């Protein structure tokens, strides 16, 4: 029996915020699209492999970086295993940028922002820029003469553009915090968002070939 002045209660259970979030997430990314078991024929090209290669390199960077951070500079400078992980971290970063740039070129020349994929393109470009800042703070976190040289050279450039007061490259603690916490969290979060957008919008197809009397579906032949 409803109270006068109040709306009668519905027999259906109340819609909690968890319900709304779940329904929106499933509607945006149904399981068969989140983890598909088949892909369009046009992804049968090596140029489409460089996105996942970038993620693989990023995983090695994160794992080796976590080990370096836990063991400390005395370990990575002096011991054999420490120097191995130091080198592993460096070369994983080199490979990360190498394959990411090839991925970027491929997506640029195939116009990967087409078909409502602008957010996918923008998140990828922003991850690239943040990765450069992460690598820069990594050079400053080496704790050797190389990092001191880079810091003293970079401070003049950064001071000249007016950001040296709050981004002080000679402050090791600040650069180390940027390198091991703030920027990696941003890179990983944006990379996850980027991949989810790829799943939602699909992999961008190549430009159609109507001018040559063929359609995009001809790539399966």
């Amino acid at each position: 029996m409803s109270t006068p002045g109040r709306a009668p209660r519905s027999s259906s259970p109340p819609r909690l915020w968890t319900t709304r979030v779940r329904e929106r997430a499933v509607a945006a990314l149904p399981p068969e699209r989140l983890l598909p078991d088949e892909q369009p024929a046009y992804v049968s090209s090596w140029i489409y492999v460089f996105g996942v290669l970038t993620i693989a390199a990023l995983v090695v960077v994160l794992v080796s970086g976590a080990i370096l951070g836990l063991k400390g500079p005395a370990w990575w400078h002096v011991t054999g295993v420490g120097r191995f992980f130091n080198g592993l971290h460096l070369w994983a970063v080199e490979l990360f940028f190498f394959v990411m740039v090839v991925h970027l070129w491929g997506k640029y020349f195939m116009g990967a922002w087409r078909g409502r994929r602008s957010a996918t393109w923008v998140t990828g470009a922003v991850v690239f820029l943040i990765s450069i800042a992460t690598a820069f703070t990594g050079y400053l976190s080496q704790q050797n003469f190389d990092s001191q040289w880079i810091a003293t050279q970079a401070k003049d450039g950064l001071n000249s553009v007016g950001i040296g007061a709050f981004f002080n490259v000679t402050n090791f603690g600040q650069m180390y915090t940027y390198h091991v916490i703030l920027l990696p969290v941003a890179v990983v979060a944006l990379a996850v968002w980027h991949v989810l957008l790829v799943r939602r919008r699909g992999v961008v197809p190549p430009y159609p070939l109507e001018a040559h009397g063929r359609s995009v579906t001809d790539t399966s032949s």
Partner: protein
Amino acid sequence: MTGGSPVPSVGLMLAALVNLSHPAHYVHWHFFEMSVANVVVIGLMIGVFWLAILLPFPRRHPTRSQPPPGLEP
């Protein structure tokens, strides 16, 4: 070698491939200046980019000929 590396011979062997015990070489072209190492890396990236486009890709899994339903081409 310093630091007590367990296998110094391997380190020396790898170091012998590229002699890094000298100042870096640079290429100059008018205002353009870049280390040879960076030029080599950029050249490798361009080479890998073209190989990725031109080399055939092995087919193992079933593939669609068009994007999945609901996705824009």
